[in-house]
Each structure stands twice: as C-alpha cells, then as structure tokens.
C-alpha cells in the first residue's frame, strides 16, 4: 500500500477539504471535526467531481410506531457531502450514500497522521507549503 503525503494537518482546517491527484486518481481529503478522510473524487452516479460538493448535515425524523414521525431533527452537521450535480448525499466518514449505503458508495482510503520522518521519500510541495520537522503530515494510503 503506497503512502502519499498530501498536506500538513494545519493546511486543511475542520470543515475544509483539499483535492489532490494520487496515482492518476483525483481524491478529496476532508477534515471532519479534526479527523481526516479521503474519498475518490468521482460520483458513482454520473461521474461528477463529487468532492467539490457542499458539506452539510441531513434532516431525519422518527417512526410512526413510536409516535415520532413528525419529530424532525438535523444531524451529522459537517459530515454529509452533497454531489454538485444531482445532489446525491454521502457520509464523508464512510463514503456510503444515504439512500443506499450498501449498494451505492464512494471509494474511500485510509488516512493517517505522521511526522516527517515517519514516511520516506521527498517532502511534498515544500516550495508551496513550507513545513518544519515538528509539523505533522496527513498521509493517504492507496
């Protein structure tokens, strides 16, 4: 499994994202409340660059059986990615779609945080994003 340093942890703030190109694949790296996630930037529906979509939450309600069908609540704020074309929604943490989590999902990749000396190879984009030895990197595993 190849490791790719994609940014420093300070570079992608909570609620933000960065689109990177890894091994010919476009991938979105997201910071959801301090934890990083990586998703393939292709919507399984019609191929839109899904990682450019809006990030928000979702409205859900309870059930008829327990009398809470009309109780609306807004949850998972900042955890839902909405495709910029047709609005299909996905959980950033898992890549799974809301309407069919098992049958429709975006490929996701493990993300870890590492020191500069943890991963080998050259430092990424040092000319654009100056880093120091102490800084932590976001590493995507393909």
């Amino acid at each position: 499994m190849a490791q790719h340093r994609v940014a420093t942890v300070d570079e992608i703030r909570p609620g933000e994202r960065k689109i990177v190109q890894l091994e010919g694949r476009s991938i979105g790296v997201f910071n959801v409340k301090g934890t990083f996630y990586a998703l393939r930037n292709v919507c399984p529906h019609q191929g839109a660059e899904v990682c450019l979509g809006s990030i928000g939450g979702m409205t859900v309600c309870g059930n008829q059986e327990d009398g809470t069908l009309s109780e609306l609540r807004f949850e998972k704020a900042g955890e839902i990615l909405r495709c910029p074309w047709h609005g299909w929604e996905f959980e950033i943490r898992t890549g799974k779609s809301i309407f069919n989590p098992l049958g429709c999902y975006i490929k996701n990749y493990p993300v870890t945080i590492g020191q500069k000396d943890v991963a080998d190879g050259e430092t990424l984009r040092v000319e654009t994003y100056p880093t120091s030895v102490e800084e932590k990197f976001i590493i995507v595993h393909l």
Partner: protein
Amino acid sequence: MSEVKVETKGSKRKTGLPFIDCDIHNEVPSPDALKPYLSQRWRQYMEMVGTRTYHGFAQHIPYPKGNAGGTRQDAWPPNGGIPGSDLNFMRKQLLDPLNMEIGILNCLYRVAEQLNDEFSAALARAVNDWQMEEWLDKEPRLRASIVIPYENAEFAVEEINRVASHPGFVQVLFLPRTREPLGRRRYWKIYEAAENHGLPIVIHFAGLGGNAITSHGFPSYYIEDHTTMAQAFQSQVISMVCEGVFERFPGLRVALLEGGFAWLPSLMWRLDQQWKRLHAEVPFLKRKPSEYIREHMRVTTQPMEEPPKLEYLLQVIEWLGSNEMLMFSTDYPHWDYDSPELAFPAKFPIELKKKIFYDNARAFYRFK
C-alpha cells in the same frame, strides 16, 4: 512517496461519441443586460414597473431548486455571474472538453409569462437580439430557440417573422404551463408561422406558470413538482394531437424537452384505443394518434429515465415503436444535468446510442 499535485481541470481530451446537445441554457445575466436591446419606453417601464407575472411582483425566479440557482454547483463562472451567463466559461466547461458538435440554447428568461403582452413582446425582441449578438454570432457551435410571447399569437408571429432568417435560430420555444392546452386555436397562428419558416416548436420543462402543475391543484413539495412535470407534457401532447394540429399543419415538427419519455408508449396506446371508439368526435384525425406522434414529435432524453434494469429501458424504447424519436440533451448548467459519458448504461446498444446522440437530432433539425 510520490509527487502530489493539485488537480488541474480543462486538460481532458475529447472522448465518447460525437453528439448534438438539444438542451443548453444561456442565462440573461441580469435585467440590465437586456436594457441595450429595449427601447426607451420599455427601459423606463422595466425601471418603473418591472416584471409582472403570475407570481406578483417577484423580481427573481423562486429558486434554489435542488441546488443554488437550480444549477450544477460547479457551473458558477469565475466572473461572479450566474451559471449559463458566461460564454467563455461555457466553452471551457461544456463545449471544449466534450465531443459536442452542435449545442442548442434554450433561454428561459421569463418572457411569455408577463401579464403585459406588449412588455412580453418587447422582452422577446430584446432576448432574441441579445442571443444573436452575445451567443450566436460569437460561437459557431451554438444554435438557439426563438423566444416568443406565446400567449399573444399576433405578437409571437411578428417576432418569429422578424428573426427567423438568422441561421442560428433553429426552433421556437414554449414552456409547458400555458394558459390553455397548446392544441387550442389561440396558438395556431404561431404553428403556421413556424411551419412557414421550416422551424420546429419545442416545449421545455419549466417550474413556473399560471396553472397548477397537477390537474388537482398545487402540491406541497418540489419533488412532486419535478416529477409531475411529465403530467404537464402529457396534457400538451394529447391536446396537440386531438385538436388536429398535425392535420392542419402537416409540416409542423414538435420536440418535448426535459419531460421524460417512459410515459409516452402507454399514452399512445391509450390515445389509439380511445380514437377507435371516439373518432367521430374528432373527425379531422385521419390517422391513429400514435402515428402523428411518431411522425411529428421528438423527445429529449434528459433527465434520463433510470429504471432498475437496462432491459426495462430498452423495452420502453421498443414500445415507442420508433428508434428515431429520442434525442440526447445535457440540460447544462442545470442541476439535473446529464453527462454524455455516463448518463447511459455502459451496455446500452451502440448503434441505438449513435442515433440518439447524433442522427435523430440531425434529421429533425435538418442539419447538414
């Protein structure tokens, strides 16, 4: 550790089948953009009264629907304008990267909904002049609809006659929620003019209009409105056929844009069934209703029907009784855009796809 670079767009080579896009939307950036094309009288009117439609004094279209502006989120041009208003950005996002040979613009500026017929006609003139100057004369891959004040046939005919000679105009635009069903006599002069100029008329999906989208009133939700649009189209098809429009104007061609097509086979079956029993009521119908529909009408694909299995989709197309009725469209830059590369299932038969992507539109529009 490999090199990472931020993705650059616009470098994609053209892939996929060549196609004709039967539905692209160019947007008037703001009412100010029309002022150079309006007479002093109507500029003053616009400033003093502004738009008056079924929606009272609203200045803007009541969108978002689906997405902000009812458009693809990635379609906002960098110049700060609204999606569809910037030709250069449209070139970069749509015309250049895709294998499109011809794209047809349908400008949905609220012209025919104006309650003031004279203002409606003035806006139609302004929008068409703006289309010629800002779009057709600048981009040879684009064609456009003539926008008309279709609720006043006299003014509509004047406008068709005024601009029909411009080679960029290839059809006449209606929206589906008209004051009366489109087969009725108040619209016949428009069909006569279109036929005389060899121009098809098209009816394009639109969320606004004076009449409710359903036959039983206004529904609560946008998802209902969007789905029920098929009902509005069905009513227009039935009306145009049953009023004998295609007997009276045998050269008239009609395209239904963005109304779906899976409903059309069952509508044709039912119309034919009723015609066998009731033809004495409409003796001017010399042929089965389905024959008029197959001969005179075409339907665009977007938003593509998405049944659970490909075989169902192919079955519907077989039921249409013709492989020449469907024409591909993207609906760029709207939020329910169809990708020419991925809207059709991978195993869709290639010969049929070629007809839908290219041949059918070329024949319908008589493109060389």
